[in-house]
């Protein structure tokens, strides 16, 4: 009896671990981007090494890329350094024979958005990327985790990694989420329950009826933030929802090969009675719209809940000082300066749709700057075909080119010192969205509602008002 993690692990061991040496784990898919790969390519060059499996390597640029263009449609770089970083990736991909979904590609976008879109992400795979949100691909029942740049070099050169077997942590989510409550609220709630280090050394497996009821995009949001609980990865066993999503994707198997793959993929699910190192049960009915009040993603409250008092807890007191919030009060009514809809957590079509539903026929408050950044060129096209871009623009929001943008604030999209941002991204660390920026993490629906109100509001209340 094995968990899905053990099944995938066992199938990818080039050699099993011993006390002296970690396991050699084979990597099926290696995703690379411009920020964490240049030093790895430099290492390959210094040792005169080739990329072992270019066809198992997929590149895009997303972290430092501009989301604005020049009049001629070329990217308008923030500075010379970001341009140089992107051009370095272009040169490296050309030199080492790696396919690059760059500007102008139909599939350009955030690395964790385009992998699934292309069907490159498939159940049962091992997937790595020099990015901690790689667990996003776990939504498909893949074992997907973030690595450092040295390890990017290992995978480029050998398609393998030295890894210790992770522990397993089952997160059972029973019942179903209420309407207006999204996967983002659920994952913030879970991180609040288990803590910012609750998953250290473990792979989270999200299970239960509430998880089964989620569509693929919601499952990606859920798995995406596994690292925010310190977990090495997070995943959901594949099912019919997964297979339906993958069918006809450009890199997915076709015809009879697809049907055969579905049979293999269905067998990945954790066996009845398999042992987990840790388990927790969550009642989905109790999850409300959830936001962060502090400076790490475990410092959360439900929208109608008061920020807890943390007397003597230095970390919490520092967070409250930084955020300029007070214990004993809800966040409702706090004045908002910036709203960001985007990031590998919440930039997919369903995210944009749920934000647009709130914004349709409404205006972004005068005190708010709202940025909507689709996760990929494909999502941008789909959203525009549905007229969502018009909804955002008519409401007064900025509609941008795809990229990580204000989640990591490397490309010039940033929040000014002291400003409060309600953001659909994944990290509320001090300065994450710009020096001195104060970040409240929330769902797309909550973020859009806050944009309209110009302050933090309960989206379930706003929806009762006439649009």
């Amino acid at each position, binding site marked *: 009896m094995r968990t899905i993690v053990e099944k995938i692990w066992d199938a990818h061991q*080039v050699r099993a671990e011993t006390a002296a040496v970690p396991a*050699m784990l084979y990597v099926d898919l290696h995703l690379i981007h411009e920020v964490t790969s240049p030093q790895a390519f430099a290492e390959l060059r210094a040792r005169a090494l080739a990329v072992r499996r270019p066809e198992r390597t997929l590149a895009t640029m997303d972290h430092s890329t501009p989301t604005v263009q020049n009049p001629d449609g070329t990217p308008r770089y923030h500075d010379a350094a970001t341009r140089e970083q992107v051009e370095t990736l272009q040169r490296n991909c050309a030199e080492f024979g790696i396919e690059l979904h760059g500007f102008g590609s139909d599939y350009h976008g955030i690395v964790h958005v385009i992998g699934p879109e292309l069907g490159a992400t498939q159940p049962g795979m091992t997937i790595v990327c020099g990015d901690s949100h790689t667990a996003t691909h776990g939504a498909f029942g893949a074992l997907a985790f973030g690595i450092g740049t040295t390890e990017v070099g290992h995978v480029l050169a*050998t398609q393998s990694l030295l890894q210790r077997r992770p522990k397993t942590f089952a997160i059972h989510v029973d019942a179903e989420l209420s309407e207006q409550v999204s996967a983002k609220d659920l994952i913030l709630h879970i991180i609040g329950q288990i803590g910012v280090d609750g998953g250290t050394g473990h792979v989270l497996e999200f299970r239960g009826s509430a998880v089964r009821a989620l569509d693929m995009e919601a499952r990606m949001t859920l798995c995406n933030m596994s690292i925010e609980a310190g977990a090495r990865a997070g995943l959901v066993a594949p099912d019919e929802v997964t297979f339906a999503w993958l069918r006809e994707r450009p890199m997915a198997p076709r015809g009879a090969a697809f049907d055969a793959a579905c049979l293999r993929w269905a067998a990945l699910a954790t066996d009845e009675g398999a042992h987990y190192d840790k388990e927790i049960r969550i009642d989905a009915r109790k999850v409300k719209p959830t936001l962060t009040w502090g400076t790490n993603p475990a410092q959360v409250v439900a929208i109608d809940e008061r920020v807890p008092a943390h007397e003597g807890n230095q*970390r919490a007191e520092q967070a409250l000082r930084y955020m300029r919030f007070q214990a004993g009060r809800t966040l409702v009514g706090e004045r908002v300066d910036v709203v960001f809809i985007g990031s590998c957590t919440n930039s997919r079509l369903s995210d944009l749709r749920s934000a647009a539903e709130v914004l349709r026929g409404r205006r972004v408050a005068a005190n708010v700057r709202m940025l909507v950044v689709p996760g990929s060129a494909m999502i941008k096209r789909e959203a525009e075909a549905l007229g969502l871009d018009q909804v955002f623009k008519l409401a007064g929001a900025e509609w941008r080119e795809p990229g990580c943008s204000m989640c990591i604030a490397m490309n010039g999209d940033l929040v000014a010192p002291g400003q409060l941002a309600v953001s659909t991204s994944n990290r509320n660390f001090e300065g*994450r969205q710009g020096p001195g920026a104060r970040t409240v993490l929330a769902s797309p629906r909550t973020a859009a509602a806050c944009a309209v109100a110009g302050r933090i509001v309960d989206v379930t209340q706003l929806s009762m008002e006439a649009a």
Partner: protein
Amino acid sequence: MQTPTPALERSFTEFTSLLAHLPNAHVDTDQIIPARFLTTTQRAGLGKFCFNDWRYAADGSERADFVLHQPAFRGAGILLAGHNFGCGSSREHAPWALLDFGIRVVIATEIADIFRSNALKNGLLAIVVDAAAEAQLKQHVGQSLSIDLQACEIRGLASGAIAFTLDQFARECMLRGVDQLGYLLGESALIDAFEAQRAA
């Protein structure tokens, strides 16, 4: 075919330095080096950005209230950090920045997985200790301690040496000053066999 293995910049056997204390829990890698300094394509010279937003005021002046600016901690190479040090982003720029800043050893009751993995691959020794050992170390903040990686001991404490454990493979690589890529390349026949078996 055994590919020659280049040495890490420095092998690590024994190291003696001052112990600095950064008590904050859950220090994320965005604090260790903010993302706006990741636009480089190099790994050298990142020490000047280490803890940038805690170290410097908006006008670029040093903040006297930053804990590592205490005179007793100047030049310290061993950092006793708070629980879950290095959480968040996988950026290897974090250990690169710490090393360039002068830190060779980080000790905490928990160290985030990716950061710890990155640190050990760069010759930054990341040691996890229990709360009792942490309490003893707190008694020696600002003093000189020795880390013996051969014996896996922290020495120089009034209460006697503290033993620690480290992944055997990571320890061996650090002691010998070799990196893991050379090892993986040396096992390429195994990778060939694995790929052939899957293709069959």
